[in-house]
């Protein structure tokens, strides 16, 4: 049995018939073909699949695609606008906040919500907020620096 789903991803609408057990992350990667969102575990620890769903940073492995019916989703591919990097992306580049790049999309999407909630986070707060994202390369030092850089360079809220 397949069920219809419809959602907006990075401003574009998609509709498909999917198996009810299909995870949202696999829908995004395999059905829609946006492979920037990664799968690093099967127990929702790693955070590599973090996306924004209706403005909330969520792990896309924690939802079935059918649960996202009608949702507005942003993935890593939707963050840069008109070829211009978002300050968080720029921060990761400036501060060497990535090595292998696999956890990076999830880190950046988590940081996106973090900075919406806490525009000027302390180091301690950044580390606490990254609880749901694992990185095996950087030892987190430069990820913290990258998010601090981004916080300093975010455009003022209108």
């Amino acid at each position, binding site marked *: 049995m397949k069920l219809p789903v419809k959602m907006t991803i990075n401003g574009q609408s998609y509709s498909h018939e999917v198996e009810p057990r299909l995870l949202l992350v696999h829908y995004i990667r395999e059905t829609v073909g*946006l*492979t920037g969102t990664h799968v*690093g575990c*099967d127990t929702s*620890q790693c955070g590599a699949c973090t996306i924004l769903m209706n403005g909330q940073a969520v792990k896309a492995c924690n939802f079935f695609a059918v649960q996202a019916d009608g949702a507005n989703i942003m993935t890593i591919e939707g963050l840069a606008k008109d070829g211009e990097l978002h300050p968080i992306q720029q921060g990761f580049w400036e501060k060497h906040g990535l090595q292998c790049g*696999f956890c990076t999309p999830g880190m950046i999407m988590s940081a996106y919500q973090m900075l919406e909630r806490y525009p000027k986070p302390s180091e301690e707060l950044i580390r606490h907020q990254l609880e749901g994202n694992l990185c095996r390369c950087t*030892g987190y030092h*430069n990820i913290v620096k990258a998010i601090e850089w981004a916080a300093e360079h975010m455009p003022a809220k209108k």
Partner: protein
Amino acid sequence: MATVAAERLFGKSIKRREDPRFITGRGQYVDDLKIPGMTYAAFVRSPHAHAKIRKIDTAAATRHPGVVAVFTGKDMTGVNSLPCGWDLRKEKKIPGVIQDLAIVPHMPLTSDAARHVGDPVAIVIADSHEAAVDAAEKVQVDWEPLAAVTITEKAAASGAPKLHEGAPGNVAFKWEIGDRAATDAAFKTAGAVTVKKRIVNQRLVANAMEPRACVARYDDATGELTLWVTSQNPHVHRLLMCAFVLGIPEHKVRVIAPDVGGGFGSKIFLYNEEVVCSWASRKLKRPVRWTASRSEAYLTDAHGRDHVTDAEIALARDGKILGLRVKTTANLGAYLSTFAPAVPTFLYGTLLNGVYAIPAIHCEVTGVFSNTTAVDAYRGAGRPEACYVVERIVEAGARAAGMDVADLRKKNFIPKFSGAFQTQVAVVYDSGDYGAAWDRMLQMLDYRKFRAEQEAARKQGRLLGIGFSAYIEACSIAPSKLVGALGAGAGLYESGKVRVHPTGMVTVFTGSHSHGQGHETTFAQIVADKLGIPIEQVDIVHGDTGSVAFGMGTYGSRSASVGGTAILMSLNKVIEKGKKIAAHLLEAAPKDIDFLGGQFQVKGAPGKAVPFGVVSLTAYVPHNYPEGLEPGLEETSFYDPSNFCFPFGAHACIVEVDRDTGNVRILRYLAVDDVGNVINPMIVDGMVHGGIAQGVGQALCEGAVYDGQSGQLVTGSMMDYALPKADMLPMYETDRTVTPTPVNPMGVKGAGETGTIAATPAVVNAVVDALAPLGVDHIEEMPMTAQRVWKIIQGAKAR
């Protein structure tokens, strides 16, 4: 046309050129690949640690909708065992062998028995991932469960369940290094203080964030097989798979390792899954994709470490080290992984000299088989185990002798040298100034001030501790002749091809592979500097046997020193040829041409010059050209180093232990590393940070745990295996000293493994120091979880 670079890039922290694709979600990892007609594989694995296979019934699985094929080991006729690439046998004249390596079969799909949980017995291939996984559950295996052994110290005990016919007593090998008699004599020195401790280096899982994956595509029309695989060394994968396992022609196989999400050693080895998928793709004439779930990764990625050691140190009354005696049992798991025998022998025993002038050392290692996942190289590979033994036993010795742990180290450092220091364990260090790194670290730390603070804190009942680690490691792996004499089945050189295009743009093909190291940036820095062109005019190609001549790949911190030097050699050849072309154009002799600032000029006559781009164009449009010179401007070199390089450094960690909960908190972490000359400091710092985090992870939270009864891997997911998180770790305080290596022309050593090697003993030593007021003078086992530390505190109180 090529232009002239504005500045020298060697030593500059330029931003990484690979980052834009990663931060925008456009990296191309193996699992991102989709090919028309692609099928999906799922493996049927043993749920038992040890069991005979009576029968496998695949009928129901084969009938499952969407299933293309189901294969077991019996279907794979003509396929050989996965090879072990390191041979420790007396007949090979390998030094130190006491008992020959038992070379046991490791079939891609086992059909006689399963020897660890997760051992694959069948592959199900279907039109969708879901169908493959569903059908895999319908494969009926008639198991006859057998008794299992997983615990390192019990694996070779009498009466332990036997894993392999060819390995009596489950002993894989026995090996020694050093001088037994001299060491025995050192321990009998009158007045010597001797200390013996049991030191356990627990089993770890590499946990690269990207799980292993492969896509195999056989093209029936051309007879070519393309394998995309998460590999640190695609040529090694190809060679082993073609020559040893599948017996298919090497030139008809192309192995591509595209963007790879971390390796840390675990993606060096040839694994069952990529072999079976390649075989199946040839059989079915369809592409086959497999991606490990994280749970599969825990069960099948080669594990690391797993040593149990008795270490003894003898000290003179003045604190000088007299001797070191080490006896280690190394758990190799159920099978011999690709380089498994090298790790607890030549990558371990040879580093036991540390940074100290130790007059006598003896080390004996027994490798054992057990019903666990195979163990092989994990970041540092043998060297962290050696450093851990040395740096823990040195502190234990200092405490027994009543000396300060910092003073005792300083008293024993090998004095500054360049060229050669002969250790007691075969290897010859290249260059070192151990005291300089140490002094810098103490200065950053303000050691005496910390001891005063610690004293004050202790009076308030707080448990503050400091731990040190003065490490050394062997990298730039390695001289081929030397490793060949030690049992390696391969040479360990590297290739580098420089292709100068007619316009002077440059493509470099390297046998090194980047899975986070940043070669597209650092190698391009070397090229841009040497040719005097902007870095934008240089591209680095790696990870594809279809375009790279050959390559031994990336591990053992060898990319910059071995891979980078191969590129440098080709650049020199390009310049030499360029001089001949320029000399012709300038009507001068080649010996009178200098290459400076991106142009060829006549010595002493800067006005008489041709730019690099004109020379490259002339090479491809050779109308006005030297007689007898081949057209084109492309050079290939293979560099085989003359020695290892030996980075070193001094790390310190300050912790506070919560007396009530046993929780360990890191307050400061300091690292002064000496990795020789540095191409890109930002990238080296990043490697040091990440290395430290993995070392801290081992010390504080990580550990692969098997249930001793059932043989199940209890830490089989990220929920159970504790990886370090951001809030456990501090900002690292780092600095460097620079002692260039004389081994290679750039003077670079290697930075990828230093942090992991150094950090673990520093953290554990700090915890021991913190607990010293309670009478604790040693801790045998890691990780220092709150529970373990709490128990130690309770035990100390009870005494």
